[in-house]
């Protein structure tokens, strides 16, 4: 069944030695040295595409190779998972509500003036009052333009709101500052100061990061970090933890809306054991799983 002339959908032939390595990656059988080589290969887009196809193939085979025994997910574990999913959804819904309100406001603010303006201008032309008609037409166009500007600004704001990272509401609980200070007061927390990374920033940034491996909670504080445009790019935190893995843990994406002191809660996607450093990269909206590290403006080394 092997046919070297066959190509995958990426136009890559599956008969190259590096593809065997990527197949090993998809099957999870790589040695450490092979893993390093495969990781380097995945820096290149064609290899990433091949790897993705091999992952999909393995997943399809996983389903095709059924197992006779399918154990029911224990109810207590299902409850924990359900709560986590619903909490995430609840936070997302709060953001959607704000977006809906803005869009509704824009709609009601723009529509009536357009209708009134058109009617007024039509009436003036009908009565041959051309000077007044032209004046009213110009005014109507200005109002329309203003309306469109309001709509565009509202839409942009809506997009910005939508793209904002999920932050739990803090209506009832202590503020981020209080929680950060409480964490700072605890023994055995990890503390590191921000220093310049490989991507220069227009102004120097200071601040620190505090993380508690016991509770897996932490906060970043920034002073002077440039405001980002969330529709174009977002900041993303990476936690480097050699005790856990040689791959950094995604600490979540976040936005900066003020160059004053800003506190951001850390949202580690995986358990962190003993962080050695924290790095901030600039990524596309929503963040990435694999960072090219092209823009890395800040680094905080623990004990550094």
């Amino acid at each position, binding site marked *: 069944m092997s046919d070297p002339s066959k190509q995958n959908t990426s136009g890559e032939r599956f008969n190259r030695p590096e593809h*065997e390595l990527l197949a090993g990656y998809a099957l999870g059988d790589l040695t450490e040295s092979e*893993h390093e080589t495969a990781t380097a290969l995945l820096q290149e887009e064609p290899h990433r595409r091949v790897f993705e196809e091999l992952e999909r193939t393995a997943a399809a*085979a996983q389903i095709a190779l059924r197992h006779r025994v399918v154990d029911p997910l224990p109810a207590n574990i299902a409850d924990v998972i359900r709560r986590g999913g619903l909490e*995430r959804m609840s936070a997302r819904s709060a953001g959607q509500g704000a977006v809906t309100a803005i869009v509704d406001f824009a709609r009601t603010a723009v529509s009536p003036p357009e209708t009134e303006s058109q009617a007024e201008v039509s009436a003036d032309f009908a009565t041959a009052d051309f000077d007044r008609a032209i004046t009213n037409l110009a005014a109507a166009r200005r109002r329309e333009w203003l309306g469109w500007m309001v709509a565009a600004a509202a839409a942009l704001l809506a997009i910005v709101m939508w793209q904002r990272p999920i932050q739990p509401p803090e209506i009832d609980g202590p503020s981020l500052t209080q929680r950060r200070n409480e964490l700072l007061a605890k023994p055995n927390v990890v503390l590191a100061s921000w220093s310049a990374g490989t991507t220069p920033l227009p102004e120097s940034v200071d601040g620190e990061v505090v993380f508690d491996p016991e509770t897996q909670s932490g906060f970043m504080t920034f002073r002077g970090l440039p405001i980002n445009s969330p529709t174009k790019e977002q900041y993303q935190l990476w936690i480097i933890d050699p005790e856990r893995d040689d791959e950094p843990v995604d600490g979540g994406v976040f936005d900066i809306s003020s160059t004053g002191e800003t506190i951001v809660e850390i949202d580690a996607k995986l358990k962190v054991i003993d962080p050695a*450093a924290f790095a901030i990269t600039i990524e596309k909206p929503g963040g990435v799983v694999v960072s090219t590290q092209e823009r890395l403006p800040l680094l905080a080394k623990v004990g550094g």
Partner: protein
Amino acid sequence: MAFITHALAEPDVRGAKPHRKRAAKHVIYSETRSDSMTSIDSSETLAERAQESPAADSILKRIAHGDPQAVNECLNQYGNFLWSLAKRYCGESEAEDAVQEIFVELWRTADRFDSDKASEMTFVAMIARRRLIDRRRRGGRVPDLVSIDDAGCDVAQSGSDDHVELSDEAAKAGECLKKLSEKQQQVLSLSIEQAQPHAVIADRLKMPLGTVKSYARRGLLQLRECMQRPLSVEAT
């Protein structure tokens, strides 16, 4: 920067392509499922209506759109499958953490599911495998050995007792698996379905480790090549 190395590549399933419902051709084994997921529209008009209806969207699409009911459906639809998978990959003691990790990843990546690239089940299995393989590489527990005779896996057949929808690509994977050599089938079954490390497979099959790796890796590559071919050719 040397301190950030690459994680497993993110599946390229982003993008805002219009959702197209795939017609399921094979039903293999089932867990609880919603009716909205099982309907097959033969008429294009009906299919188009289904696309417009939020209820007809995939579970992951609805999760991405913030439908709380979809969380329950996701658990009902994939919970048992993922729990069983986690147990086989990590063993009972770590399965709880592992399955939670998988679901967190599903909530996070639900908006990246693209039905034009893979079925929802395949996407879920891909995310799960990625997390479980990563977890094992981080030093997770290797599951207990199972007897090869008791491995309990074979290529799924239509009309079997259990009932989870087998997507087009999974059905094709099943067909293509049958075309591999017996040894390749055995090694891939133990590797993928039983989640046995290749060193363990080598020991059990009394084969050199390098040979087992070659069987597995080349088997997967051949599987992919086979799956690229038209279904009509492979179905014969």
